[in-house]
């Protein structure tokens, strides 16, 4: 995707040399040529319309993140019905602000201990194991010459088979160089499976999917697991009735397990850019006004 956009940038830059009016003529196919002077130039570029047609589409592609950036939980905005978007994103922070369909791209959560009474179709999660499938991706992208769909490629991996620096583990996940979890008492293989590297591991050495990290995290954080099971900790969207269909957010959709104790953060969450403040009341010139002019009590 990155490479594609680079191509488009180059193409746009080339066209820009030819004249600004040409860009408008190319990007809007229904519009008639603006000036006769540009027509011969337009004829010189017939093979190009396909990438040019794709360019504005890609330019307006809106990707928003849910709870944390880099958690493989990004959503690409699209219409699910005419006039109904799957998600609305914040223009300032590109955070997901509104869900048109809370169950988009979800699969059943699977049976959880002590949650067997919930029917399969009532508890769903958004699978992320495909995006987090780093090792298999290496095999297909570099050696098999079969590229996965562009939106499935992890952001740290190359998007094509051109030679590129090999992404090391630390290059893909910079935060693991300084693992901030367990206060120095745990390391990678406490959580990751020894031989199946695209899986997590439970107490018995059996693999756990990346989509069910609660089975792993609950090993130590049992109190949080209990609250999560009851809906007190964590997040669910969908229907509010206790018997309703909900999309459950699993542990790693909100918490980065590799640096949960990072000193830069507060209360277990990465710092986020806040949305814009409310309108200042009449008479207040800036946000510090209320500090300088306290309300008499």
């Amino acid at each position, binding site marked *: 995707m990155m490479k594609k956009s680079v191509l488009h940038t180059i193409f746009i830059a080339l066209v820009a040399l030819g004249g600004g009016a040409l860009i408008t003529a190319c990007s809007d196919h229904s519009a008639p040529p603006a000036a006769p002077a540009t027509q011969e130039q337009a004829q010189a570029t017939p093979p190009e319309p396909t990438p040019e047609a794709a360019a504005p589409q890609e330019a307006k592609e809106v990707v928003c993140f849910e709870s944390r950036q880099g958690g493989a939980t990004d959503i690409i905005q699209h219409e699910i019905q005419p006039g109904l978007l799957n998600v609305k994103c914040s223009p300032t922070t590109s955070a997901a602000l509104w869900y048109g369909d809370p169950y988009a791209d979800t699969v059943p959560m699977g049976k959880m201990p002590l949650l067997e009474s919930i029917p399969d179709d009532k508890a769903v999660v958004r699978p992320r194991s495909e995006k987090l499938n780093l090792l298999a991706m290496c095999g297909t992208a570099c050696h098999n010459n079969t590229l996965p769909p562009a939106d499935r490629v992890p952001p740290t991996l190359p998007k094509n088979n051109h030679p590129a620096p090999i992404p090391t583990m630390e290059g893909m996940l910079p935060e693991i160089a300084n693992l901030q979890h367990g206060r120095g008492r745990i390391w990678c293989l406490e959580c990751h499976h020894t031989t199946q590297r695209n899986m997590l591991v439970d107490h018995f050495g059996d693999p756990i999917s990346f989509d069910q990290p609660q089975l792993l995290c609950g090993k130590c954080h049992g109190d949080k697991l209990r609250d999560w099971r009851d809906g007190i900790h964590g997040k669910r969207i969908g229907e509010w009735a206790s018997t309703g269909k909900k999309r459950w957010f699993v542990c790693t959709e909100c918490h980065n397990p590799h640096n949960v104790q990072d000193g830069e953060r507060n209360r277990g*969450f990465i*710092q986020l850019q806040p949305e814009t403040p409310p309108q200042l009341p009449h008479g207040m010139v800036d946000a510090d006004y209320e500090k300088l002019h306290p*309300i008499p009590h």
Partner: protein
Amino acid sequence: MNANETPPTTEPPSASLAPSASANPADYPAARAPTTSRRSFLKAGGMLSLSSLMGAGALMTQSGEAHAAAEWAEHFQKNYRLMTDAEKDEARQRLERRYSQEYEKPVTVDITGPQPGVLMGYALNVRKCIGCRRCVKACVAENNQSRGERPGERIEWIQVLRMERGEFSEDKMDHGYPEGLGIQVGGNAYTPAGQVLEGQYHYTPEAVPEKDATYMPIACMQCEKPPCVKVCPVRTTYREGDGPVVIDYNWCIGCRMCMGACPYWARRINLTTPVLPKADMNPVTHYLGNRPRMRGVVEKCHWCLQRTRQGRYPACVEVCPVGARKFGNLLDPNSEVSLILARKNVFRLKAEMNTFPKFFYFYD
């Protein structure tokens, strides 16, 4: 005239008052008025003129654009609580036609009433809140608030207050009460929690949460004993059977008594004509909820009635990135809110006001 004056008729007051509140001329028992009483004569005359106006209104409804028809019909509309199901449905169809024409897309106006066995409740984890204001913006995207740029045109129902954290560190032992104020306004004896009691809500840091701050979102608390309902002179705001305090916007006169009475700063008034771009308008609306408001009416959080009456979580619950917001049925012992009340440390804001909010703050 004086000679004709007779003592007031002895019919019970309920019988004489009830028809006058009705907008339907068929409800008037015109034949019941005896013969010569001045009072009944005047009443009959009034009814006659009213019914002729109604006829004119009905004629207007037949022809002309949906907007004008809706305006006419709304003049003769009863308070929402007094409307029959047929009248509610008529109002719904009228509004759907009007909004669909105005916003150029199919708009639905829901009139679903309270469901039996439901008492909505809300809980918010103040420890978790990071002050990102996503709930504020989600509320605006869902509830069709005015979003202009001029003063008073941007309305947000949720306020996120930033409070400074108190601390008992040694180097601050010498600092006493906030300078210039002379009184303690929060925090502890050594560090005040902000300079104003309300906290700061215009904070603009690069990133939240800040180290020395704690955040407290406030919106309508949906009180069980709402002061706003007590003071409303036209009784247009009231508590619904399943909990939320709602407003019949058509009967609001914009007197702002409720804004003064609310201890939680939860109500907003449309001082100007609301600025609502057609593209951003949410077409899924509820009559008592997020349907587009007019100028001069008060509005507030209603727990997304258009969603919660259909089973869906409120918009702010769904976007909270830290899962601090919880919503559920207080009568269901297995709901999230009931479990929080049973298990966590819970407080209500300004509990001493005896408003009995159904919005609970908790921490674990």
